[in-house]
C-alpha cells in the first residue's frame, strides 16, 4: 500500500510551469531519490508535497488523506516532515530549542512530554555533536552540523516520511558520507520512509533504493537506482541529448 501518491501534479508560479503533471507513488519503508539537472522542478515538487506551495493541478495523497493544498502544519501532523534545501535553522534559537519546535504539535496528547524527552535523547545519540553544543545559538553551527540539526529536528516530530532537499548541498564529501550513513541507520531502526532530492546520481546509486530522474518539470525515468546506474539512456535523459 503506498504511503504517498501523486496524480498529475502541476505547479505554476505566475505564467511559469515548474512541474508538469507528475505522477508517482512511494510505499512505506521505501527510499526514493529524485535526481535531475537544476530547475527540473525537484524542489517545487517537494514543497508541494509538504503543502508550502499549493499545486495548480492534480492530487496528492499521504497516508490515505487527500493533502492537496492543505496547510503545511496539518500535513506535518499526519507524519510528513520536510527538510528544505538550504537547511533552515532558527538562527536566534539554541540547538535544543530548534529541536523542540517540532514537538509542539503533539502537545496535549497523553505522555507527550516523556516521548519528546526520549526523542531528544535519541537525536543526541545519533548526532553527539549536537548534545555538546546544545545551548549554543544554531546560527553559529557549521554547514554539516546544521544539516544534522535539521534532520534531527525533522525526527523530533516522529514522522512516517522524511523528505530532504539536497542534504549534500555545500558539504564536504566526508561530511556528506557521515550524514548519509546516519540516514540509512535511522531508516533501518525506525522503519522510516525517505524521499531525498539528490543532484548527484552517483550518490543515489551508492545508497541504492529506487530513483526518479526529472527534467523540465517531468519524470523522465523511474527505476532501481543501481540498475539505472551508468546506462546510456540515463545520460541521454539527464542531459537531454537525442531529443528535439
Amino acid at each position, binding site marked *: 500500500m503506498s504511503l504517498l501518491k501523486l496524480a498529475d501534479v502541476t505547479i505554476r*508560479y*505566475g505564467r511559469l510551469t515548474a512541474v508538469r503533471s507528475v505522477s508517482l507513488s512511494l510505499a512505506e519503508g521505501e527510499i526514493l531519490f529524485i535526481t535531475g539537472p537544476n530547475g527540473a522542478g525537484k*524542489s517545487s515538487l517537494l*514543497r508541494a508535497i509538504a503543502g*508550502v506551495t*499549493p499545486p495548480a493541478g492534480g492530487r496528492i495523497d499521504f497516508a490515505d488523506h487527500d493533502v492537496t493544498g492543505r496547510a503545511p502544519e496539518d500535513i506535518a501532523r499526519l507524519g510528513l516532515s520536510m527538510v*528544505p*534545501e*538550504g537547511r*533552515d535553522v532558527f538562527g536566534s534559537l539554541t540547538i535544543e530549542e530548534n529541536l523542540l519546535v517540532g514537538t509542539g504539535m503533539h502537545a496535549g496528547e497523553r505522555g507527550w512530554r516523556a516521548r519528546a524527552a526520549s526523542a531528544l535523547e535519541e537525536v543526541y545519540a545519533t548526532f553527539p555533536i549536537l548534545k555538546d553544543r546544545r545551548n549554543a545559538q544554531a546560527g553559529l553551527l557549521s554547514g554539516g552540523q546544521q544539516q544534522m540539526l535539521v534532520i534531527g529536528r525533522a525526527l523530533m516530530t516522529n514522522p512516517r516520511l522524511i523528505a530532504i532537499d539536497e542534504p549534500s548541498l555545500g558539504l564536504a564529501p566526508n561530511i556528506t558520507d557521515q550524514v548519509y550513513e546516519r540516514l540509512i541507520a535511522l531508516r533501518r531502526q525506525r522503519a522510516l520512509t525517505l524521499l531525498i532530492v539528490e543532484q548527484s546520481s552517483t550518490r543515489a546509486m551508492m545508497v541504492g533504493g529506487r530513483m526518479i530522474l526529472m527534467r523540465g518539470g517531468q519524470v523522465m525515468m523511474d527505476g532501481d537506482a543501481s540498475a539505472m546506474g551508468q546506462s546510456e539512456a540515463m545520460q541521454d535523459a539527464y542531459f537531454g541529448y537525442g531529443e528535439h
Partner: protein
Amino acid sequence: MSARTSVARRTLATPLILSALLIVFALLAWFVGSKPFNQTIIDIFLRVILVVGLYIFVGNSGVISFGHAGFTCLGAYAAAWLTMPPMMKQTLLPGLPEWLTALQLPYWAGAGLAALWAAVWAALFGKILMRLSGIAASIATFAMLAMINTIYSNWEDVTGATSSVVGIPIVRTVWPYLIAAILAVFIAWAHAISRAGLALRAARDEPTAASASGIDLPRERLIAFVVSGAVMGMGGALFAHSIGVVTPDTFYLGLTFITLSMLVVGGMGSLSGAVIGVLFLSVLIQALRWLEAGVTIGASKFALPNGVQEIALGVVMILILARRPSGLMGNKELGWRRAGSVAPDVSGQKQPDLSKGVSK
C-alpha cells in the same frame, strides 16, 4: 527607429487615455457650473498631481516613502513667498530676505519655481537617503517629513509657524489645475520609459540581478526622488492657490496617508493605477458626503449620520485591498490593445515561495 521611440509609441496610449479622462472631469465641472462642485473637481486634480508624483518614486522604486508630503509643504510655502502681496509679507513674514519680500509673481511662475525649490531639497535629502532601501528607507523618509514639519511649524519669522499664512492669490478656475494634472501624468510617463525609469523598474523587481548588471541603484532612485519631489512641489503650490491659506499640518500625516492609500488602492505598480485610484476614491468620498448631507427620495429625506463617511471609506478601502491586493488596476496600464505594463510583474503579490531562507 531607435528602441526608445518604439517603447514610447507602444506606451503613449496610457497618458493619452488618462488625460482624456481628466478632461472629461473638467468638462463636467464646466457643464455643471456650480462653484462648490468646481472646487471638488479642483481638489480631485490636485490629488491626481500628488498621487502621480508619489507614483513616480514609490511606483517605480517599490520603496514606500512617507516623506513626500514634505515636498508638498515646501512647494506650498514657496508659492506663498513668491506670490503674496509684498505689503502683507512685510507684516506677516518679517524674516524673509528683501529681494523675496519685494517679489510678486503670477501663480504659474510661482508654481514652477516652487517645483524647482522642492526638487533642490529632494536632491539634498535624496543624496543621503537613497542608499537605504526597504523599511529603513520608509522610516528615513518619514523622519525627513517630520523634520520639515517641525521646522516649518516653529520658524516664526519665515513661515509664520503654526499660524496660517494667508493672502495667497486664489485661483478658482478648473483649467490651470487640469493642465498641471496632465503635465504631471506626462512627466510620470516620460520618466517611466526613460533610461533611468526603466533601470529603476528593473531594479524594483529583481534588485540583486539589476545591481549585478551594473545598475547604480542609488543614482536611479535619486533621479526618481528628485522628479517626484518636483511634481509634489508643483502640487503643493497649486494646493495653496486653491484655498488661499496654508498651515504646516495641512501637509503632514493626513495628506501622507490619503495619497499613499489612493496609490495602493489604485495599483502601486502602474501610472493608470495612480490616476484611477484618485478618481475612484475621490468619487467614493464625494458620494458618501453627498449621502451624509442628505438625499430626498420622494417624501422622506435619507441621510447618513455625521461621521459615517470616514468609517465607510476605511471599510471600503479594506475590502478593495482584500479582494485585489495589488490594487484596482493590478499592474496593468490603460492602453488601446491589451498592451501589458512595461515590465510585467506581480509586485503587489508576495511570491508564495519560501522567500526567507528556503528558496528555489
